[in-house]
């Protein structure tokens, strides 16, 4: 079964000076699994996510993504330079603020990874990018610049941009938090579709209904630690940990039982 594990994190820690944002988190994600991380603001869930593609360098613990494993206790296994870039290239990430490249059209944004990182011929990258933009419902917007798109459209371009690298794993960092409420649905729909197709993903979100519908596994973090985890239904509807209960009570009534 071990070769079925896409991500294995053990005892991961991240501190900024005296402040420890992530305090020993362990997590296994199997191939094709959608794991949702929830928890109050400042609980360390975004920092934890950014540690997985090494946008933040963890202070301690081990991390395995696909074949590559890194022990942060031994500094020499931390990839640097080109090696680090290659490690990240296999992991897609989508951010709260979309962070599209403003000087490129939607099409060019999606092509950027394959062309710049993989040195793929333009025509081939363009075909991939057109397919992906069509898939996220933006087939008619390929020549638009980010400033000419709504937040929801920009975020869908950002998802397509990450998918164009054919990542082994997708990370979503509160991708709907900056969106107007009426635009949240279109982005979640794309993510649901990716999950249904068997994309391995770790999603940090406040969208409890999305968690309920899509997550194979829900992880609740608080104070830099995992306080509870398990099947979505179990954790969201019958939380055992008092901190989970307190956190979820704020969403009381908005999480309906899965029918």
């Amino acid at each position, binding site marked *: 079964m071990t070769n079925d594990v896409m991500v294995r994190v053990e005892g991961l820690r991240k501190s900024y000076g005296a402040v420890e944002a992530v305090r020993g988190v362990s997590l296994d994600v199997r191939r094709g699994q959608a794991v949702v991380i929830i928890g109050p603001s400042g609980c360390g869930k975004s920092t934890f996510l950014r540690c997985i*593609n090494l*946008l933040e360098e963890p202070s301690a613990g081990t991390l395995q993504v696909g074949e590559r494993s890194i022990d942060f206790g031994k500094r020499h296994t931390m990839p640097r*330079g*080109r090696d680090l*870039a*290659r*490690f*990240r*290239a*296999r*992991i*897609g*990430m989508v*951010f709260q*603020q*979309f*962070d*599209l*490249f*403003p*000087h490129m059209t939607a099409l060019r944004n999606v092509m*950027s*990874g394959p062309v*710049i*990182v993989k040195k793929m011929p333009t025509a081939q990258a363009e075909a991939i990018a057109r397919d992906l933009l069509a898939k996220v419902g933006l087939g008619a917007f390929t020549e638009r610049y980010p400033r000419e798109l709504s937040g929801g459209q920009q975020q869908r371009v*950002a998802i397509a*941009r*990450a998918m164009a*690298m054919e990542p082994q794993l997708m990370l979503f960092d509160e991708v709907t938090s900056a969106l107007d409420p009426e635009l949240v649905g279109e982005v979640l729909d794309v993510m649901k579709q990716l999950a249904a197709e068997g994309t391995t993903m770790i999603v940090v979100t406040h969208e409890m209904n999305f968690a309920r519908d899509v997550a194979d596994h829900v992880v609740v973090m608080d104070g830099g630690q995992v306080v509870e985890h398990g099947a979505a239904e179990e954790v969201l509807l019958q939380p055992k940990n008092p901190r989970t209960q307190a956190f979820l009570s704020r969403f009381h009534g908005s999480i309906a039982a899965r029918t």
Partner: protein
Amino acid sequence: MPYKWDFSLVVNYAHFWVKGLAVTLAYSAGTVLGGLIIGVICGMLLLYRRRWVTLPIHFYVELFRCTPLLVQIVWFYFALPIVLQVELPAWFAAGIGLTLYMGAFSTEIFRGGIISIDKGQWQASRALGMTGGEMMRHIILPQAIKRMVPPFVNQSIIQLKNTSLLYVVAIPDLMYTGSIIVSDTFRPLEVYTSVAIAYFVVLYPLTLWAARLEARVDQ
């Protein structure tokens, strides 16, 4: 008796004027280009957050920003050859101060342009798997250069005016040419008015162009 303006004398020195203007433009172009190269190199180096790299550059930038350009020109012209114990051609020694002065400001413009790019652009590039060089070339610089152009053009305009300080080390630029003609004609009012007009005629179109560039970047 009111002063009688007579510009006919000034016109008689036409070929002097042309030469002076050529020297002014040559020094402007040369020192702006030299300063740009220094600025790009030092600005890039500043991004490497190693103190042994950034500290000397900061020292250089502040040294040139916090001393008068006139002092720099005079120092490089008279003192540098003695300090280095080498013969420097006068035209070259005179230009070093101007070049380094432009370089100090260009460094700041370059660095400012780079760090003005949103953090999200850097993290999105890294997350896609770009190396530092790929990110700079394809994502950061194309956006940053657009923002650097207007301040750089403005600094170049200031630089063109600053070349008039070469006058003190007898470089035959527009200003020095003017002073020569004055000693010949005893017509300082007409001559220095003409000098001012010459600078204005060159610079006014440049400022208009700079304003248009700025408006375009703001869009």
